[in-house]
């Protein structure tokens, strides 16, 4: 049975590592549902958050293969219940609707979205939340003609500690 797993990768920030990691999924014909990359809580350590829909044995093998890469420090996988996760969406709409269609202001209020910018031609709404929340707002705004819509990859932190600093120290000790 397939489940949604969030894979968290701590790594060096090297050119080409993303390619090396995505090749592991490609080789097994597994689709990446979402991908986010950013610095982590530790200086010079990079973090990837990858969402896949696979079986547990599959995710375990993916994690083993990713962790095997020289520039990867540590990899974890979690179910949705084990993480706090959010996505961010941006919606670009024609400015005149903001004033002519009262409903739009209601949608923004009800969904706790915020307006990022308003220009004479367009305004941009930002909404952070679960997939179904950003999706609901997209559906509500769609009839007014969304000029652009974009949603980020999943951002996720685990409920349990990951202890990367400790792992980095143990690597250093190992190599001395």
């Amino acid at each position, binding site marked *: 049975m397939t489940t949604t797993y969030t894979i968290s990768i701590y790594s060096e920030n090297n050119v080409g590592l993303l390619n090396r990691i995505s090749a592991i999924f490609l080789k097994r014909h597994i689709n990446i549902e979402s991908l986010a990359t950013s610095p982590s809580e530790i200086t010079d350590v990079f973090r990837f958050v990858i969402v896949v829909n696979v079986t547990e044995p599959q995710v375990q*093998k993916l994690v083993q293969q990713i962790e*095997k890469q*020289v*520039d990867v420090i540590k990899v974890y996988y979690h179910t949705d219940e084990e993480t706090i996760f959010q996505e961010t969406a941006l919606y670009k709409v024609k400015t005149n609707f903001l004033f002519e269609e009262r409903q739009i202001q209601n949608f923004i209020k009800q969904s706790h979205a915020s307006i990022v910018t308003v220009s004479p031609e367009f305004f941009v709404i930002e909404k952070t939340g679960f997939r179904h929340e950003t999706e609901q707002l997209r559906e509500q705004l769609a009839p007014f003609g969304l000029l652009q819509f974009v949603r980020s990859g999943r951002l996720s932190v685990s409920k349990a500690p990951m202890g990367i600093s400790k792992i980095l120290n143990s690597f250093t000790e190992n190599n001395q």
Partner: protein
Amino acid sequence: MKEKTMHISGAEAVIRCLLAEGVDLIYGYPGGAIMPVYDELYKFQDDLHHVLTRHEQGATHAAQGYARTSGKVGVAIATSGPGATNLITGIADAQIDSTPMVCITGQVGSHLLGSDAFQETDIIGISTPVTKWNYQVTQAKEIPEILARAFYIARSGRPGPVLVDITKDAQFGMLDFEYKPCVGIRSYKPVPALDQSQVVAAAEAINKAKKPLIVWGQGVILGNAEAEFKAFVEKSGIPAVWTILGLSALETSHPLNKGMVGMHGNYAPNLLTQECDVLIAVGMRFDDRVTGRLDAYAAQAEVVHLEIDPAEIDKNVHADYPVLSDCKQSLAALTELVVPKKLDSWLARFDELYAKEYEVVIEKDTKPTKEGLTMGEVIVAVNKAADSDAVIVTDVGQHQMIACRYAEFIRSKSNVTSGGLGTMGFALPAAIGAKMGAPDRQVVAVIGDGGYQMTIQELGTIFQTGVAVKILVLNNEYLGMVRQWQQLFFDRRYASTEMTNPDFVTIAKGYHIPAQKVTERKDLTSAIQEMINAEGPYFLEVAVEKEDNVFPMIPTGASLNEIRLQ
């Protein structure tokens, strides 16, 4: 400036790094984007010998052959674009067979990257899935640190190929050179620390076993653990069988060496994998050619898995007792805890099944009564002429299976073959490297007529270097293994497997390599002897029976129980 540093070019730094890593021999092919390095090679030719192969693929296979017999890192070098892409087959082969190799490629100037410049190709992108690590150098000052890392990564832990791509401006650029060997990388743990509790648990399982079986792979050789392995086998008294890449780690004549597992392996090792109660896997990765149908593989057995690479644990076969570490350490620790066993009736099962295989397969292969020559009798003749002490380099196909089944060995690092990737064309260039990596040894390349013609241009390298490689082509005028499958599984529709071959003897003579062809049994022994006795390179073609098949055989996707003797 500190005293220790020299102000030199990136290209010179490349050479000085190689020398600092103890490299004295590299294989390669020059071209535009790597010319600054070749210019330095010219200056350093007394210290660093460069072998010009006739194709970049040959350079990688030669580097692999060198690595496999010497235990050192093989080095191949090429230019950008096609030079680099031609390395890929050898790199992929080295990756799947865990061969330590460093490849250095030239690249267009960094200002041209991404502009589709002449001979520009994204070799980092192309080589990523088939390298242990790769890196593009765009500044001269990076060269010492990156090459130090490259060698460290290639040889440490589970070895593998590394590619370093160096832009032309980085080769021309100047740097203050100081070489520090790499001793560690914070994100990389080459050898997991041995966990004694895993050893204890594994030993308990082994000590309880009534019908234990050891299956060993190349990890024993890569870990320099032959002595520890032999001590483990001898103390425990457990029968041991090998994967194709594990071959030669334990001498053929050892009473507990019970033969090969896998698709064309021996009868007893395959069938008794399905009967053993504890299977002790040592430095092997449960390739599908070894396991056959996975869910039926050793289903009755508890599995102990001694392995250096955590990603191999549970990858194909679940390990009830994983023991992570270098097998040199784990075997020594395990040997201390195992209790000697008397396994007479279990060992008798191997003899019983061997007798059956001998009667149906081995006798016909090695002592044929029919007119046509068999590949098996040729290999037996090589054993005799070389006192079972040749390095046997094989290509891919029927001859490879027959050679691995019948070749005899008395010491390790004597079997060089393309296992995981199954690269036809591997043997001829690999034999060049194998001989250079073990110059005092007899090196015989056993090759089929198909694979021989995939890299036949390397005869030029043999002629130019004079390297004393013995080339033994077993010619059945077919792509024999594919033909065998067509016969057995495609109703004898021999689609594009018959070969109309040239006069191989004339070709060898064109390269001034002494050559002869044998077509009759009465001439075989003397011809093999002449080949073995030759001081320099020698070519021998043996015309073998055209439509012989390799047995035993486990059809693809079948379980080991379905092994066929005929």
